[in-house]
């Protein structure tokens, strides 16, 4: 029973990660028409910055409390075996306070967002020169460059070993089975926030400007939109979101590995958006749930937990099957539902917009009353 609960928490957590990624890709591509096939680049940068900050700062705090000196390592100090020892035993030894764990989490997420935004701005440079398939390939290649460097160099995340003892926000909590549930709740909170944000944005003047740019760049320019600035903005926002998703993944797994950020991860996000329908945020959540389910449930041990036993040779093929299914989904959706399974809805006036209008109205009335 506990296994099942862990599995479902896992699913919810991965759902959150994919949902935030997919919402951001949808903002960039679905609304803005920018095919950011380097999603994983910004996700990884968020993961690296959050992971290294939490590991480094956590190590400082924990080692000073414990009185253990961890220095003299050639690479980043948090990659040393002593660092691993200190960080992995910090909670049981009481070297780090619960408040410190939470603080590390908050700081990591904030740093990730900042780093993501900054690199999103830098990453918007190719969009000034390129569009369409060539832009997609360029961004994909940039993501691979960062992954290859991270995989082979001690900086930032301890080369191919990865950074394996990142302090997680609920590490201090005794009931380990509940930790995942807590984290799942936390990540759903983030997802809801981002959902509301993108939903709001999609129907805002900015969102309409993005769509105008997507539908016809020239027309958008004629209408006075600065499309270069719009692309910069959407990539800053989208990349900050992707970076936060990366950070949230790190604080769940307690580790960062460069190979988590292979191009396949971007493809998963693209499939999630395609499944849900381009420029359709609700649909995108459904797509993210499906991709997360494939990720979490489609392996022998998960199925075992759910009471399904699979023969050995099927078990070895299952993890690969996930990508075969994704590939087939991509082609079928493109062939039969190029706009996604749930097509884009016309701009509506959601309750938030109404609320804003109401507030504005009240404001105007009050102002009018004030001047009287």
């Amino acid at each position, binding site marked *: 029973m506990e296994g099942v609960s862990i599995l479902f928490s896992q699913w919810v957590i991965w759902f959150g990660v994919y949902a935030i990624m997919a919402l951001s890709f949808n903002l960039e591509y679905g609304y803005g028409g920018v*095919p950011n096939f380097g999603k994983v680049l910004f996700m990884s940068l968020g993961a690296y910055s959050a992971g290294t900050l939490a590991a480094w700062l956590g190590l400082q705090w924990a080692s000073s409390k414990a009185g253990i000196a961890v220095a003299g390592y050639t690479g980043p100090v948090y990659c040393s075996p002593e660092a691993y020892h200190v960080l992995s035993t910090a909670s049981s030894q009481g070297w780090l306070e619960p408040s410190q764990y939470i603080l590390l989490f908050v700081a990591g997420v904030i740093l990730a967002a900042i780093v993501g935004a900054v690199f999103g701005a830098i990453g918007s440079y*190719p969009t000034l*020169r*390129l*569009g*369409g*398939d*060539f832009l*997609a*390939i*360029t961004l994909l*290649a*940039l993501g*691979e*460059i960062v992954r*290859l*460097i991270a*995989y*082979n*160099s001690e900086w930032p995340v301890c080369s191919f070993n990865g950074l394996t003892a990142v302090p997680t926000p609920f590490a201090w909590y005794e009931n380990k089975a509940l930790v995942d549930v807590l984290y799942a709740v936390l990540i759903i909170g983030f997802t809801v926030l981002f959902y509301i944000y993108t939903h709001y944005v999609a129907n805002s003047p900015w969102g309409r400007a993005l769509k105008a740019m997507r539908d016809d760049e020239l027309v958008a320019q004629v209408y006075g939109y600065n499309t270069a600035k719009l692309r910069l903005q959407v990539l800053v926002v989208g990349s900050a979101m992707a970076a936060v998703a990366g950070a949230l993944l790190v604080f769940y797994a307690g580790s960062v590995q460069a190979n988590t950020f292979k191009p*396949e991860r971007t*493809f998963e996000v*693209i499939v999630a958006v*395609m499944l849900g329908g381009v420029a359709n945020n609700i649909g995108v959540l459904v797509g993210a749930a499906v991709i997360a389910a494939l990720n979490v449930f489609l392996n022998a041990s998960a199925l075992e937990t759910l009471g399904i036993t699979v023969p050995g*040779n099927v078990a*070895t*093929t299952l993890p*690969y*099957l*996930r*990508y*075969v299914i*994704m*590939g*087939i*989904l*991509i*082609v079928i959706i*493109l*062939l039969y539902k*190029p706009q996604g399974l749930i097509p884009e809805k016309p701009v509506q006036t959601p309750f938030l917009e109404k609320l804003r209008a109401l507030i504005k109205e009240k404001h105007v009335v009050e102002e009018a009353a004030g001047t009287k």
Partner: protein
Amino acid sequence: MVDVAILYGILGALINGLRVGSLYGLMALGLTLIYRVTSIPNFAYAEYITYGAYAAYIAMTALALKGTLGLAFALAAALAVAALAALASDELAFKPLWVRGASPLHLLVASIGVGLVLRYSLLAVAGLAAGLLEASLPVRSTRLISIGGIASIETSHVLAVSAAVFFAVLLRIMFTRTKIGKAMRATASNPVLARVSGINIYLVRRVTWIIGGGLAGFAGFVYAYYYYVNPESGWLMLLWIFAAATMGGFTFYGSIISGLILGIAEQVISFLGSTYFGLNTAYSPVIALITLVIVLMYRPEGVIRLEALSLKKRV
């Protein structure tokens, strides 16, 4: 003082760069052909190479073939399987999408999907059968000339270089002199008018995929003749191949020369990097990636084109 061992090392890197570079160029030829005719930046292309390599390996080992005749049979198997994989991916995915008016970006996404299907089904199968996760032809590349006991020229060098040059010339002649080649260009340039001119564009398309896939199969065969193949071999080379093709402006001669430049740069830079700076040679793909990014961004029409044929303007 540069010592002699380092000079030999550089020489060896040059020679091996020639081999791997011609291989990249050879691989880029099929990608270029398919791109020129169908405008698909085909990410599934890498898998045709892998499939070709595996077909050669399986044909030889399953039938216990030996010697040159065995190699010839393996080559035939590689050509057939890769061409079939290419043809099938067009018939099942790309052609129907193109008929529906898909954009190059959609075709790119579709090719990613097709590539995932091909690569991961191979991974799944290879995981089941023993010895398939690392395969190489039983008849190995052999040394022809030894240089100072460090560097050497092997049969695989000769095969890779001559195949690359031969096929580039052949394709160039086909494209500019033969009826089918001109029909390919006509189909690419204006498909409706091509039909109006009496060209069966679907047949032309099929021929294109068979030749493009066949080239991938040939490259896969050469690859398996020297290297160990795993189900991800093609995929791992794809960015090199794309870099060669884009740097070559999607022209045949340009692809070969760019492939050579990239291959030699890879070998020489990683040799010097590891000798003088202790750099990990695993960084070398960064060379291809950076080339790809720079070319796409600043010279999307290619650096080395050697052909006046205009390409449709992208962006």
